[in-house]
């Protein structure tokens, strides 16, 4: 069985190839079926891989499969190798499970799009790259997957490339990610320089012996990896691309920009825990950045009016929690949150997509309201996802988020815990602001659109229901009791028993109570303000704190600041270089050489009479001269 | 040295004489055989069974007025018949008619019954016969007549095309004998105990088809197709020069038959009768088949002829060479 692990990314890759070369020639239904079958088969094999791992004894759940050599140059030796351990098993299950459901959903959501096969081809390619990323047994294959998902993200954000904003958003995502990738790449160079290898086994095995705890090399490696992670996982300060990425089709937002790709950074940090543990300072930085991002994004989410952007900022915020978890050493909990978050955030996005689909493309929540009657399934699943996201017992989000906060508390990072809790309050508030505004409150739906409002077809509804079951169930089934549930017993060995600060049961229960109260408070406030849709408080508060409100609505003017600080100077410098260097010097040189050659050629061309006898005659002169020289030289 | 010269000269004279006689009587044989096929009598008046007919014909042609059309290129027009006949006769130099002989005890040492035996005998015959084209093509061109020119071009294209297949068809024989010398090839058939026509049946068929085409015989006699080209390349020729073309054609036929005999039919080998008799018997048998074909088969169309040569015979000959080589490698 482990020999067949390559089939997990292999099936989506095959699907991609089939769709790319034959997609236009096959019926639309067939294209969707191929893509879903590829994702489904990958899911089956992922389940098989899990079953295989479970049959092994707990300390032997780690299999490396080397398929073929890839690069051999000097002492660089990289092979196509896959690593199957509990961590990657969890990741492939999340990717294939959520991915498969989103594929099915897409069949309905993208049903009317003319580029249907292209969409599924990209989606399959994304699956293949993402699975390669999480299954890699060395940093280079991981990096290949990493760049592959980045490419797919770019392609899918800009899927509707005729739309200026979509193609701009795609480019923005790609360029911002380059910044992070540069850090990642530098870290890889440094790893290879230090360890002479890029294989996980040998790097992590030597981490303790070759690296000084807190030493410069360890710090630089960890910092580089973390920079890469902030880019891919949209953390401060590189988060700016993710909200714009909502220009892509909604299933893409759900799959790539909520459930899977953006969590690649978290996975990478967790996978590299051995290296991060050698740099405690960077670990603290990870935690601080995570916590700050969690609150920062949550504050923006409170005032946004685009349904998908609210969810997007929520994603950034939740990713912050995951990094907070990594930062305080609770890698397993961070990955657990990654898994639960994949379910409820994908569900939120798909629910949002269902609403948008029903309203014929409308995304502004100020033009929604009272949709609960018309969209009962969407409404129910969306409510469950909101509760899960807000962290209400016993839904998924509660377990994982609480573990992270408890870990922060147990690690004596009280400030970080406080920030996290504040974020939780905001989370509950904005989630239910969204829910009440969309499904209850006042009906602001456009008269023309109102006629067409309908519940989504079964092909979209069933994935919603399946994800809702997941959002409700995974937390309590796998995560209870906290830190000792099924999930932890399975995954913890992968982190080599990293020091998670034990806290007493009493403290755990107490923290859970506090968190629940905070979440309920947020929900209560949102209910009070937005349930009827006529409460004057929101506008009064906005009026009162006009400065703060404007700042939030404009997202702290971060985009504008980047424009002024980075984009504009580069642009102006480039223009100067173009005029001063490229046109004057480079072009000038080329033109000068061209003129020179042309002049000579015009002169020499006179000898080219085109008359054969002349050529032969000159040939003969040469022959006589050469022979004469030889005779004389003798 | 002198003895060698005298002997060689003697052999040349004997062979040349016999050959010319055979050529002359081949016309008679052909007319008789064809008339048999067509259920008529053929020449009967001149001598018993018309046996003196060839001589009468020769005398007639010899004394006929020698016409030279005014617009011809004289030098080449006069040269062409000789260029046609000479290669046909020269080729005979390497054919072995029999084993060695002492000429009933007249000679001090046994003498090979061939004018010469050279290492590259087979290639020599092909080289010489490839020169035969000149006579035809130059006759056609020099005559300054469109029938003659077309006939000449047709003839040379046909000969060049079929020469290829012919050369390839005997590769099998050469490989089996391990030599290009005709004497050695005959010897090899003796040692093998069976004529090469048995293992090289396909090669023989190809060779025979090519020989028909090379000698411009029916069904490949397009260069002389009376119905289209009046008489082909020699339409402007008359009298003795015309006779020379005729002689060249028959000499070529005899060469081809002798070559077929030597390469495929065991040469002069045979029981009881003396070798020379066997050789002549086999040659006349092959010649009879030549005539038989002429009496039986209709003429090809020109494109069919080319297609047959290039698309059928050539691949078949290649296949034959390939299979023979494979078998030889496999056996050894």
């Amino acid at each position, binding site marked *: 069985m482990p020999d067949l692990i390559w089939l997990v990314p292999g099936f989506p890759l095959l699907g991609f190839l089939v769709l790319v070369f034959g997609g236009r020639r096959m019926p639309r239904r067939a294209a969707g079926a191929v893509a879903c079958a590829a994702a489904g088969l990958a899911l089956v094999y992922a389940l098989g891989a899990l079953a295989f791992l479970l049959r092994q004894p707990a300390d032997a759940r780690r299999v490396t499969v080397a398929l073929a050599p890839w690069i051999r140059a000097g002492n660089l030796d990289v092979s196509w190798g896959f690593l199957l351990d509990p961590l990657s098993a969890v990741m492939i299950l999340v990717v294939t499970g959520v991915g498969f459901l989103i594929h099915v959903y897409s069949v309905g959501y993208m049903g009317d799009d003319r580029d249907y096969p292209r969409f599924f081809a990209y989606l399959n390619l994304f699956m293949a790259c993402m699975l390669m990323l999480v299954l890699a047994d060395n940093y280079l294959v991981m990096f290949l997957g990493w760049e592959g998902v980045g490419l797919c993200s770019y392609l899918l954000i800009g899927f509707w490339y005729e739309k200026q904003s979509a193609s701009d958003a795609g480019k923005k995502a790609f360029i911002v990610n380059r910044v992070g990738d540069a850090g990642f790449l530098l870290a890889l160079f440094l790893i290879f320089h230090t360890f002479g290898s890029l294989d996980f086994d040998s790097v992590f095995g030597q981490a303790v012996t070759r690296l000084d705890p807190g030493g410069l090399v360890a710090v630089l490696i960890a910092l580089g990896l973390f920079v890469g992670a902030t880019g891919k996982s949209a953390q401060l300060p590189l988060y700016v691309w993710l909200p714009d990425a909502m220009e892509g089709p909604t299933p893409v937002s759900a799959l790539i920009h909520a459930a899977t790709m953006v969590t690649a950074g978290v996975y990478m940090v967790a996978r590299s825990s051995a290296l991060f543990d050698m740099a405690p300072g960077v670990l603290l930085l990870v935690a601080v950045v995570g916590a700050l991002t969690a609150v920062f994004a949550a504050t923006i989410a409170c005032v946004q009016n685009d349904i998908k952007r609210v969810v997007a900022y929520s994603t950034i915020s939740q990713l912050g929690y995951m990094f907070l978890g990594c930062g305080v050493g609770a890698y397993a909990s961070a990955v657990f949150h990654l898994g639960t978050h994949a379910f409820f955030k994908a569900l939120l996005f798909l629910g949002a997509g269902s609403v948008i689909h029903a309203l014929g493309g409308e995304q502004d929540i100020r033009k929604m309201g009272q949709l609960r009657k018309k969209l009962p399934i969407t409404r129910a699943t969306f409510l469950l996802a909101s509760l899960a996201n807000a962290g209400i017992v016993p839904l998924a989000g509660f377990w994982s988020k609480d573990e992270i906060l408890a870990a922060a508390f147990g690690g004596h990072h009280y400030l970080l815990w406080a920030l996290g809790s504040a974020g939780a309050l905001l989370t509950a508030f904005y989630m239910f602001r969204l829910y009440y505004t969309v499904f209850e409150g006042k009906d602001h739906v456009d008269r023309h659109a109102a006629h067409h409002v309908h519940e989504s077809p079964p092909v979209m509804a069933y994935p919603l229901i399946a994800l809702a079951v997941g959002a409700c169930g995974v937390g309590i089934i796998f995560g209870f009791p906290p830190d000792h549930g099924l999930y932890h017993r399975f995954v913890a060995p992968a982190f080599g028993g990293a020091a998670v600060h034990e806290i007493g049961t009493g403290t755990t229960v107490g923290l859970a109570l506090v968190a629940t109260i905070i979440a309920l408070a947020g929900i209560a406030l949102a209910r009070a303000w937005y349930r009827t849709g006529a409460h004057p408080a929101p506008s009064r508060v906005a009026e009162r704190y006009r400065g703060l409100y404007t700042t939030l609505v404009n997202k702290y003017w971060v985009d504008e600041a980047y424009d002024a600080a980075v984009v504009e100077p580069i642009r102006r410098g480039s223009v100067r270089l173009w005029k001063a260097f490229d046109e004057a010097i480079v072009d000038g040189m080329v033109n000068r050489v061209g003129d020179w050659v042309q002049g000579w050629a015009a002169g020499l061309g006179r000898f080219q009479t085109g008359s054969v*006898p002349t050529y032969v*005659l000159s040939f*003969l*002169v040469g*022959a*006589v001269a050469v*022979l*004469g020289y*030889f*005779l004389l030289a003798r | *040295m002198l003895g060698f010269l005298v002997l060689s000269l003697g052999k040349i004279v004997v062979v040349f004489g016999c050959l010319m006689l055979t050529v002359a009587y081949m016309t008679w044989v052909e007319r008789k055989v064809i008339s048999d096929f067509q259920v008529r009598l053929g020449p009967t008046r001149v001598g018993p069974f018309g046996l003196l007919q060839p001589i009468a014909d020769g005398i007639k042609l010899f004394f006929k007025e020698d016409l030279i059309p005014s617009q011809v*290129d004289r*030098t*080449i027009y006069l040269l062409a018949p000789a260029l046609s006949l000479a290669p046909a006769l020269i080729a005979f130099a390497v054919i072995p008619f029999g084993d060695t002989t002492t000429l009933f005890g007249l000679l001090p040492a046994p003498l090979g019954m061939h004018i010469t035996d*050279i*290492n*590259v005998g087979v*290639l*020599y015959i*092909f*080289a*010489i016969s*490839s*020169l035969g*084209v*000149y006579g035809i*093509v*130059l006759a056609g*061109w020099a005559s300054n007549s469109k029938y003659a*020119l077309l006939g000449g*071009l047709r003839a*040379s294209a046909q000969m*060049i095309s079929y*020469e290829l297949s012919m050369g390839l068809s005997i590769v099998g024989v050469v490989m089996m004998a391990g*030599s*290009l010398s005709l004497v050695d090839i005959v010897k090899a058939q003796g040692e093998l105990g069976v004529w090469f026509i048995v293992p090289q049946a396909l090669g023989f068929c190809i060779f025979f088809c090519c020989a028909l085409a090379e000698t411009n015989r029916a069904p490949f006699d397009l260069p002389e197709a009376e119905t289209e080209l009046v008489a082909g390349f020699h339409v402007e020729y008359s009298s003795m020069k015309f006779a020379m073309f005729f002689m060249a054609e028959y000499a070529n036929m005899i060469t081809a038959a002798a070559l077929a005999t030597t390469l495929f039919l065991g040469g002069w080998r045979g029981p009881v009768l003396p070798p020379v008799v066997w050789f002549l018997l086999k040659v006349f048998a092959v010649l009879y088949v030549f005539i038989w074909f002429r009496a039986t088969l209709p003429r090809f169309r020109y494109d069919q002829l080319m297609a047959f040569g290039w698309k059928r015979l050539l691949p078949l000959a290649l296949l034959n060479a390939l299979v023979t080589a494979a078998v030889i490698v496999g056996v050894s």
Partner: protein
Amino acid sequence: MSGAASLMEVALFAVLALVAIVAALVVITHRHPVYSALCLVITMLSIAFLFLLLRSEFLWVMQITVYAGAVMVLFLFVIMLLDLRREERPWRFPENRLQVGVGTLLALALVAELIVMAVAVRLPGGAGGGISPEVVAAQGHTQLLGRLLYTEYVFPFEVTSVILLVAIVGAMVLAKKRVE
């Protein structure tokens, strides 16, 4: 070797050389291409028999088959196809006079140089490559050459076959009538 045979050989060489040179001169001076071609055939045949004089039987027949039997027939074909006739004397054209004069002068210089070099050639002593006429007579010229071709020179040999293929295709493409 007996004196008579030697004399015979010298006489044959003299005759063949003379025929070759005279025919070659006719090739480049005759105003009718057909005569040029025929004289070239004569030169080539003479050279072929010189090969025989040098005990190179295989190349003798090959020279006849390839050059006289194939190449020159092709020349004749093309001449007839293009229907070329007697042309004007070259020195009738003023712009050609200089060319002919200078060319002849240079050619004379070249032949003088070459003859000086040819006469000065000295062969290394000893048995040379060891393929004496006796060895050739014993083992057969064709056999020896064939062995060399299929062992030491097998790669060039195979490359030549590719060249032939290319030539066939090239000639067909060039000579084919463009179908409008």
